[in-house]
Every structure is written in C-alpha cells, then in structure tokens.
C-alpha cells in the first residue's frame, strides 16, 4: 500500500482493542494518519513511546505482528475543480469508477475562520416551502438541521431543498446512508441535470460505522475550497448526523472515556460545533451553508444528540405528519430559524414578520382548542374558528408539497386571516394591516 521507501515499518503491536491498536514508536505527531495492516488509522493518544491509533474499519483480525506505517501527516483531501461531479468514500477515494482527483493536498478538519473575517449572513435561500420560507426563512452561511423521526421522508426533503437553493456547489456528506437513499440522491441529482455541481462523500450502511467520522470533515474541506478559493456559494448536506454521533460514542466508549448523558462522549457539543461552525458567509461572496439531518428516536429532542445539535445550529426544522391533512409539514412550533430576522421584512415584504407571528399564534390557539376538544369540553366559536384556520393553514401553506414564492405565501395568509378572523384578533400593527387586510373593520380601506 501507499508506503514509500523511507518510511519505517513497525511490526510489533502491543495492545489491541475493538477500535484501537497501541505500539511503540517515536517521532509521531498527534492526529497523524497511518496504515495498520492496510487499514487507515489515526493517532489519538501518545504517551512517551506508546502510540495509540484508532483504526477506522475496526481491528478484527489484526495480528500483533501486522505492519504499521505512519504517513507523517494528518488526514488530507486533494482539492481542485475536478472534485465537481464526483463520488467519493469517507477517505476521499473515488467510488464512481473514475480516476483519483489531482489537486492540492489540504488537511481536513483545519482551523476556524477568524470571527472578525466573517460577514453577517443576509442572502435569503428560497425553497418554496412555506414552513421554511415563511416561518423559518434560511440564509446563506447558516447551519440548520432537519429534526425528523426515521420514518419521515427527510432525505427527499433535503434533496429537494438543495436543488431549489441555487447553490454553485452542493456537497453531500452521507453517513450510514442506506444504499437506496444513496441511489435516490444520485438519480435525483442526475435527473435534475445538476450532477456537475454535486460532490458526494458517502459512507453507506455497508461501510464500517467509524469511517463516518471522516465524512463531514471531507465534505467541509471541499466546501472551504470552493467557498474560499473560488468564492462560490456552497451548500453542504450532512445526513444523518445522529449516525455520526453514534460513531463518536463507539470510539470514545472503546477508549474508556467517561460517557455523559445518553452514553455520548462529554465532548459531543465541541465535536459537533467544530463541524457546524464551518458554516460561514465570507465578505467576498463565498459561503458555506449546512443543511443537516438529525434523526430522532420517538420525537425525543431532549436526547443528547438533538439537544446538543440544537444548542449549536441556527435553528432546526422539525418534520411532522399533520394528521388533519395527512401530509408532512414543517412544524411551526418546534421549528426555528434564528437567522430569519436578518432577512424578514427587509429582503421580503414588510408584513412578513407580523403575518408569520400572527399565524403561528393562531395556530397555537388552535392546538389549545384541540386539547380542549380532546378532553371532551365544548368549544367556543373562537376555538372552532381557530381549528378551521389551522386546517386551512396546514393544507395551503405548511404542507411540504406546497410550492410558492414568499409574496404568494403572505397573500394566502392574509386571505386565511380574513376568512376566519376579525382584525383585532390578529394583533397586527395597524400600519401593516391598513395596507394588506381586505376584510371588514379596516379604517384604512
């Protein structure tokens, strides 16, 4: 394998665990890469002459006299324009049958952008989905995950958002992707004629889980190349980050670290933040936007993985099936885009903020009314109107298959308000309602 003549070959492994091997070696750098019995490994601990390596594919069958060759460098990716249109594995090796990409070798998982060199994100990404554009507007340079139960069509949604997002490059980091989903992404991008702007780093369920740990760094290093060197708008899709975190847990567990909540490593927050914080808007126009998927188990967002994710990302988009209309919606309650205020009402129509808030408040009233109904109480007229409104709102706006521009979404909202409510039930600023409310009781008309 790729060892060159001057590299020393070690053949005396002293300790083997499920994920790591330890041996005596000197002059080794922390986080350096190595081949252990032809498997890629990385230095995770050095104590005097004792070096411990994490073997990505696992240590099954490794013998104490296996060959260990240190590469003298951290993990790298070769970057160039030729990355575009290609499919790679977690190590950056082609899996599409084409030759290796030539380009400049860059360390993956490199340093952070100086915060004072960042630009405040302000460019809206239109997806056509009201649960996003109307209620949780996203912008370039943002990092936001979909929170979804495993049975939600999250990969379809993510892929569609990506295609509508008008990015210069879309980089897919697939972790524990099922083969079906991998082929789905591939076919969708191909059919959209978008293959030449897509780069994929794929770890499927058939690959060893620990390999996944390299995928986000690979994807983000490629993203940094296009965003910094080429000033491009790059969209990075990371799915499924829950499986990434699971792999972190496997490793830390095997290295005898004290687990914190939900058997996750105590450093989970920092580990995830290091990835998500690669999302950035540069002053020269390049940007990295991260749209991730975090699958939940039984909708539990207090589990350490979604919880830490929520503390890191700039909001979350919560997928849920609305039983009233039998369709998947972006749940207005638990979803949030924290950067929306940077564009709402300035990059979109002035009434955006007020309309959004009024609609969600009324939707919340509907939820309370439903609870009341479920508890067997009579509903007031207002309760009934709220419930009717909520159904309309779900059907005409929230459903994931509705495709409108923001202005149309606002118009639909006003019409629904007029249909179900009186003006003073909206609590909207008068200056705004004077202009857009067409129902009764408007002094402005």
């Amino acid at each position, binding site marked *: 394998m790729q060892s060159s003549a001057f590299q020393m070959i070690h053949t005396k492994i002293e300790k083997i665990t499920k994920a790591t091997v330890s041996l005596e070696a000197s002059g080794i750098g*922390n986080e350096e890469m190595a081949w252990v019995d032809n498997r890629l490994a990385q230095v995770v601990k050095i104590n005097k002459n004792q070096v411990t390596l994490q073997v990505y594919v696992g240590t099954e069958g490794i013998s104490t006299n296996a060959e260990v060759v240190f590469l003298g460098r951290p993990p790298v990716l070769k970057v160039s324009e030729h990355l575009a249109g290609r499919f790679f594995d977690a190590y950056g090796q082609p899996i599409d049958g084409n030759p290796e990409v030539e380009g400049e070798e860059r360390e993956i998982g490199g340093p952070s952008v100086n*915060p004072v060199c960042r630009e405040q994100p302000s460019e809206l990404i239109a997806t056509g989905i009201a649960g996003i554009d109307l209620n949780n507007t996203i912008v370039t340079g943002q990092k936001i995950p979909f929170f979804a139960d495993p049975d939600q069509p999250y990969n379809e949604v993510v892929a569609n958002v990506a295609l509508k997002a008008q990015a210069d490059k879309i980089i897919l980091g697939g972790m524990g992707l099922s083969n079906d989903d991998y082929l789905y992404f591939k076919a969708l991008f191909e059919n959209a004629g978008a293959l030449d702007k897509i780069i994929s780093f794929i770890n499927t369920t058939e690959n060893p889980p620990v390999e996944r740990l390299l995928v986000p760094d690979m994807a983000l290093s490629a993203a940094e190349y296009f965003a910094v060197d080429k000033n491009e708008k790059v969209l990075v899709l990371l799915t499924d980050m829950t499986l990434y975190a699971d792999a972190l847990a496997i490793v830390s567990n095997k290295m005898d670290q004290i687990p914190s909540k939900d058997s996750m490593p105590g450093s989970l927050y*920092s580990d995830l933040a290091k990835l998500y914080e690669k999302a950035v808007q540069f002053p020269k126009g390049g940007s990295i936007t991260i749209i991730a998927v975090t699958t939940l188990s039984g909708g539990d967002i207090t589990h350490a993985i979604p919880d830490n994710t929520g*503390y890191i990302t700039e909001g979350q988009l919560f997928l849920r099936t609305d039983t009233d209309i039998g369709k998947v919606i972006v749940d207005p309650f638990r979803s949030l885009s924290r950067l929306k*205020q940077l564009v709402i009402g300035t990059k979109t129509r002035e009434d955006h903020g007020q309309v959004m808030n009024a609609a969600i408040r009324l939707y919340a009233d509907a939820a309370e009314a439903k609870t009341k109904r479920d508890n067997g109480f009579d509903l007031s007229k207002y309760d009934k109107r709220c419930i009717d409104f909520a159904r309309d709102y779900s059907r005409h706006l929230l459903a994931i298959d509705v495709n409108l521009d923001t202005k149309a979404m606002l118009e639909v909202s006003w019409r629904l308000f007029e249909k179900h409510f009186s003006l003073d039930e909206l609590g909207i600023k008068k200056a705004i309602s004077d202009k857009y409310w067409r129902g009764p009781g408007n002094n402005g008309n």
Partner: protein
Amino acid sequence: MTRGIVTGITANLITVEVDGPISQNEIAYLQNNDERLMSEVIRITGKTAYMQCFESTRGVKVGLPVEFSGEMLEVELGPGLLSKNYDGLQSDLNKKEGLFLKRGEYTAALNEEKKYEFAALATVGERVNAGFWLGEVKENWVNHKIMAPFNLASEWIVESVAANGIYGIHDVIAVIRNDAGERMELSMTQRWPVKIPIRAYREKSRPYRLMETGYRIIDTFNPLAEGGTGFIPGPFGCGKTVVQHTISRNASADIIIIAACGERANEVVEIFTEFPELEDPRTGRKLFERTTVICNTSNMPVAAREASVYTAMTIGEYYRQMGLSVLLLADSTSRWAQALREMSNRLEELPGPDAFPMDLPAVIANFYARAGMVYLHNGASGAVTFIGTVSPAGGNLKEPVTESTKKVAQCFYALSQKRADSKRYPAIDPHDSYSKYLESPEIQQFLSERSGPRWVSDVLSLKNRMLRGKEAQDQISILGDDGVPIDYHVDFWKSELIDAVLIQQDAFDPIDSFASVERQEYGLEMLKKICDRKFRFQSFEAVAPYFKKIINSLKQMNFCDFNSAPFKEFEAQFKSMLNEGDVS
C-alpha cells in the same frame, strides 16, 4: 526559567517533564517548529506537569521543548480596551492575519502606537495605595483612570507625575516609592492574572440601585441591581442570547463586556456588524464605544473558553476601579463548565454529578462572587453586574450547572419552552422567575424614591394577578368554559392582558424593544387600574373578545413612541373601550 519536554498528548491535555520549579496555573509555551503554543498547568505530580493546551495539538510530538513563563494567565489593562474584539486569551482578533485563525498567533491587546492625552490627578508627595487614580485619559468618551498597581501592598509616595500632555501607553507617567526606598515606574498599563479578583477597594456594599435593562419583565417584575447577579437558563432556541443582546444594547451601564463563551460565531458577527452603527438609547453614542467583546466561539480551542470568562471579568473589574458601572454578559456559562468537564475527564478525576468536576459549584460560586458594588478607597463607587446564561442539557433545570448557579445568582430568569413555542417573547417565565432584590430594603427604598411608595406593592399585586390567572386557567381546563364562574374567565384574561402588554416585548421592534423607566411606570399604573376594575359580563363568551380588543390597543401603544400622537390615539381608543366594559 523552568523548561520541560513533552512526554504525552491526549487531545488538548499534554504531559510535560520539567527540570525546575513550576506553579499551578502557570503558563508555558510549547515550541512546535515555528509555532509557540500556549498552555496552562492544571496539575502537578512530581516532575510531571499536566497542561491544558489553548490550541489544537495536531502534529504535536513527544520530545518537543516547553518553556515556562513564571506567570499565570494575565491580561493587559490600560486605555484602548473598549471597542476591541478579543479572543479568550485577550489577543486582538482584528490584528490577526489571514482568514483562518493561525494557532500560536497571539496579538497585542492594546495599541502601542496610540497616544492619549494625559491629565494628572495625583500630586507629588501624595500617599497612594493600590488602585489610586494617578491621572486620566479620554478613551472614547470615558474618563479612563490611570491607576496605581492593584497589587501594591502598602502605601507608596508619589515621587513624580508626568506633566499633562500626550503620551503613549507605555511611557512612564508616574514614579512612586515606598518607605523602604524602592522605586517603581508606572505607565498607563498594568498586567493582572485573570483568576484572581481585583480587590483594590474599601468595601463591597449591598446593591442599592437598579440596572435598567429596558425589558419590562426584568425592570418592573424582577429587577436587576447594579452590582447584582442574574442568570438565564433555558432550552436551546428559547431566547437566552436575544435577551442578552438586547440588554447589551439598552442597559443603563457605562461599560458593557460581552463574553461569547463557546457559542456561535454568527452571534458575535452580529455584534461586530451592528454595534458600530447602533446607538445607546440614553446617550446617543455608538454602542461599540462602550463595549468590549471577548469571543471564544464553540469552534475555537475548548480550553480557552474558561480563560474567556475570566478575561472578561478582569476587564470588567478594571473599569469598575474607575468608578464606572460595568455590565458583564456571559453566553453561555454551561460551555465553560463543559470545558472543565472535558479536562477533568481527561485527567481521570473522580467525576461528580453528570461527570462534571466535583468542585464545579465552588468554581461557579467564586466567579459570581466577583460581581458586586464597591466603594473605592477614594469614596467613589463602581459596580460589576453579571448576567450569565445557562444551557441545561435537555432543557432540564435539575442539572449541576443550573443548580449551582441558582444557589449564587440573585435573579433567576427562567426561559420556558412553552412560551417560546407560542412565540411569547421574551420567553421569561413569569411564575418561576424571581429577583431577590425586590425584597431587599435598599432596593425597595430606591424604588419608592424613584417611582413612588406604591410601586413595589403594585408590582406584587400584578404578579399575584398572573398567578390567579394561571389558577383560573387550570380550573377552566379541568371544568370547561361553562363549568366555572365568569369571574374565572375575567381573572384569566386579566393575566393574559398583563402577559401581552407587560411581559411580552418584541426584541426586534425598534420601539418596543426598549421601555424606559417612565414608560414602565405609565404601563404599570395603567395595568393596575384595569386589573383592579370589576367587570360584569353577561356570558363567558363575551370576556375574551372584550379583552382582546383592549390588548390589541395596548399592544399598538407599545409599538408607538411614548406619548406620540398615534400613542395618544390608541390610548383614547382603549379608554373608551374600558368604559364600555363597565356597563356591559
């Protein structure tokens, strides 16, 4: 100086074999090719120093040389701290080269070249002690005091003071000597170890004034004292950062120090972008003139998170020594605690609850204890007011960081997921939150002098209304709308009124986001009047629509400039509605 050799590396924990004496928390530099990586001693056993490295340790090898500095982590204090963006180790981020942070690049905290106009305050022959005001310079609009070193143990005598004029920060501006005949040349700057509180004052007093934040639910309901402490726990996305940022814009402090500790880079970018433009609502000066940002975002080295909050506190204490009122905001103290946890686990210490270090409560208590209102030796007063956010895992307040903080902070602003979900911002829970200052005799006296003798009892009466409203709501949801007396509906809607008009406040509306004291006085009086009224309704169905109308008008008033023409219009509208309510 002591030297050493690296013997082991696990993530950012480095073990070093040393050849001489070293001390706990001493700073050392690890020489890796041409990079010097700063680390701090956190444990010593025999000749082995365990060090936390403030940088990424990628590529670090066993055998690298280490040089100890003989000093703990220090900051440089002097004119020019304001308007700066520092990292956790007080490197000026604007002076760093390149788009990406290069490890081992430490930039100067202050500007060597900048000259200040110095005016002497001390006279030759005067006896001075630690923190004595020797002179002053103008930093932005602040009278920045040049002070005698904070570690002077005894009284010294001023031998000479520079003539008024223009000087650089490192020029000698005074010479002092002590009884033993030792002389010391002083410049405009001094260094101070961040983990040690500056104590150059006569006494720490009980807080007796309020820090106005512009948030109604804080200033009116749960006031924060100048020199006081408060904390904001809440699940992710409930508004901790928004509350802190709004306070940093509107608070009645002279100086604002923002410590962004292990949170998002885009949040500090917001400050960098907006503060040079935004104005202080009281003085009309640009906000960044009174602000210093210490930022160690979540992707920056974990060990420096701890340093960042101490750096921020030390800079805060420095300005307090000038007789100024400083507001320190740290977001989020949980990230700092997590950094301690990561290190403690690597050191294989016996873990406490949730694997946090055993001494976490003490660490938090000591930090909060550094806030306070002090009388300086010259009789002037200064304050450090501290508000920290806490990010409890899973939003569950029964966790070590929240519990330890609750024991020491005097104000508790609990953010509720339910309120955030229904967009009732700020999501500060009106029932769970409290301010112990509302019960303090000094603050009660302050309030009664400022806003009249009935203020505190009016506040308590509205808070009580909130509670009654909740009870009424519970009853209604158990017994049904028509299963309770109409009064229950009225009680519930009175609490909704207080909620909508006083508690809820749009942080993104240019007018509503800041409520002056005058406005809050008007608001409280008006709400009290409405709530004290007895309403008679024919049926429960009439209650909600009536109150919604009132709420609508009052909310509209919140969006108008105080006492402006449209404000008056809505006021008249609501007054006439109020009379309608009486007769129905």
